[in-house]
């Protein structure tokens, strides 16, 4: 059993162990960084993708207009993916995101409908938005309770939550979309912006930045990783695991709720039936971004890139004239490769 570079007893042998130990350690570290630097890989994939489309359709792909459109389309996904990143790092999963988006949008939309409809005031819009966020957070909290206290596996708990959110959305609207949305909401979220950048983009990027910092630099993020990495160790270290899980699922719901309100403004309608695959899109993005479904690993930068790879693929394929449904095939292939890589890295880590 070799144990190079292990614990060295300073007092007994004052020399720092055999010479080749340090070189061995250094090369091992380098290898580890290369293999485990998942974000680098995904970033590389994004760059290659962008380069390919730019070369294939010079002057058409990645114009400012294009990028803005991609980013606006991606914004709701990005918001949901932020919450999903936290959930997946705890070794959980949230399948409900798309329908929590819908439910929040529907409840906010109903509120607008009964408070001035198209002519609702700015104050009303804010109240409706807060209601939408609260519905999302509340729904997430409910699912968190199922996961943390009732010990229902996240896959099932959020699948149940998905069904509930979908059903209630249809019950509220009677099956048809709400088509009357406050004009001020549409003109601000749908088309307005600041410094020429649409609000959707500003909000989704601000959220990415803020929660990226939370994930990396705060206790909240640290506990999220710790729980996903070893829940027993976290509990024994005095971390309130259940309470933290509640917060994480509530956060995922909150961000889905935010996406719901923005979606309402962007499309001017509730689009109930258009979000049934959002969860898969979002989970794909997070996993592409290097988060491990086994928990303990993930990053916000990775998630950002993970959202943009399929989004750019969709636009790029249209521009170069390839059937855009190839997007799903390619994304699936990349996803499988990413998860394979993750498992490969795990096995390798045991050996390193």
């Amino acid at each position, binding site marked *: 059993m070799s*144990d190079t570079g*292990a*614990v060295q007893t*300073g007092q007994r042998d004052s020399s720092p162990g055999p010479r080749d130990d340090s070189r061995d350690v250094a090369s091992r570290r380098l290898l*580890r960084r290369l293999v485990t630097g998942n974000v680098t890989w995904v970033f590389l994939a994004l760059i290659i993708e962008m380069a390919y489309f730019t070369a294939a359709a010079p002057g058409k792909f990645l114009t400012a207009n294009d990028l803005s459109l991609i980013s606006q389309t991606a914004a709701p996904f990005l918001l949901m993916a932020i919450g999903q990143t936290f959930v997946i790092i705890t070794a959980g999963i949230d399948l409900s995101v798309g329908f929590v988006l819908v439910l929040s949008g529907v409840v906010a939309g109903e509120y607008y409908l009964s408070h001035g409809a198209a002519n609702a005031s700015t104050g009303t819009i804010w109240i409706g938005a807060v209601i939408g966020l609260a519905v999302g957070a509340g729904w997430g909290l409910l699912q968190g309770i199922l996961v943390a206290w009732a010990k229902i596996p996240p896959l099932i708990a959020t699948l149940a939550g998905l069904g509930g959110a979908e059903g209630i959305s249809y019950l509220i609207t009677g099956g048809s979309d709400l088509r009357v949305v406050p004009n001020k909401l549409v003109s601000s979220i749908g088309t307005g912006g600041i410094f020429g950048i649409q609000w959707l983009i500003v909000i989704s990027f601000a959220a990415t930045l803020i929660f990226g910092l939370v994930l990396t630099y705060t206790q909240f993020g640290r506990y999220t*990783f710790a729980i996903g*990495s070893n829940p027993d160790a976290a509990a*024994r*270290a005095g971390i309130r695991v259940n309470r933290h899980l509640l917060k994480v699922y509530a956060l995922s719901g909150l961000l889905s709720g935010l996406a719901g309100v923005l979606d309402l403004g962007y499309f001017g309608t509730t689009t109930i039936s258009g979000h049934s695959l959002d969860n898969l899109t979002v989970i794909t993005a997070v996993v592409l971004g290097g988060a491990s479904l086994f928990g303990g690993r993930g990053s916000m930068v990775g998630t950002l890139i993970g959202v943009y790879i399929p989004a750019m693929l969709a636009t790029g394929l249209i521009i170069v004239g390839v059937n855009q449904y190839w997007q799903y095939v390619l994304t699936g292939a990349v996803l499988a490769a990413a998860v394979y890589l993750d498992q490969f890295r795990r096995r390798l880590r045991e050996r390193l």
Partner: protein
Amino acid sequence: MTEPTPAATSGPAAEPGTPLLEARNLAKRYGHVRALDGASFEVFPAEVVALIGDNGAGKSTLVKILSGATRPDGGQILVEGRPVQLASPLDARKYGIETVYQDLALAPDLDAAANLHLGREIYLIPFLRVLNKAEMRRRAVVAFKDLGVELPDVSAPVGTLSGGQRQSVAVARAVAYASKVIFMDEPTAALGVVQRGRVLDNIRRVRDQGISVVLISHNMPEVLAVADRVEVLRLGRRVARYRASETTIDQLVGAMTGALDIADPKDLS
């Protein structure tokens, strides 16, 4: 078989005053099983005491109770002579008692510094719970150095470290916060020969810092090599106590299995 009289009065080498940590007549049942049946146990300042016993003797139950993970059905726990309640591991920690679990209780995806401070983070902006990573890393380096442990990289996920290194991270964490007693549950069970030696060195070093170590082990030569005293549990109670320097493996095994009748208090110290 009666409980031997306290070592403080009858021991040949007089123990230094009151025990640091003492269990008196602890009882614990799980259904029909009496895990502990009036078990007593003592830890004196700055000593390594081995807690040994056959499977089912009640070692792990005793450790769980003394580290606050389980509550006893009866009996008393005293810290420096004062009765205390250990309702949770956090309670035990307040009294300066730390535990190095057999599975080490580390988060493999977090680095050594993060694991060392897990649940006890240091903040840059306390209000926002913003971590002071640099300070935690610095303290981790100091903690490992104090223990004489050299880690190639404090910022590497502990999952990438060797078994021996992981063990030292767990020990360093316990040492960093323990002011009185560290429980080590089978610390060498999963390790190779070289690493075992290092863990034993760790244990001695901890004791030399003035912290008592309770070593739970099956490995008799190891126990005799590192422990100052040995307490033997059998069928949920303490059946013997020895000074490590004055006993043999045969004697220990005899006491553990009951082959040796220890009715004569002269065998006890």
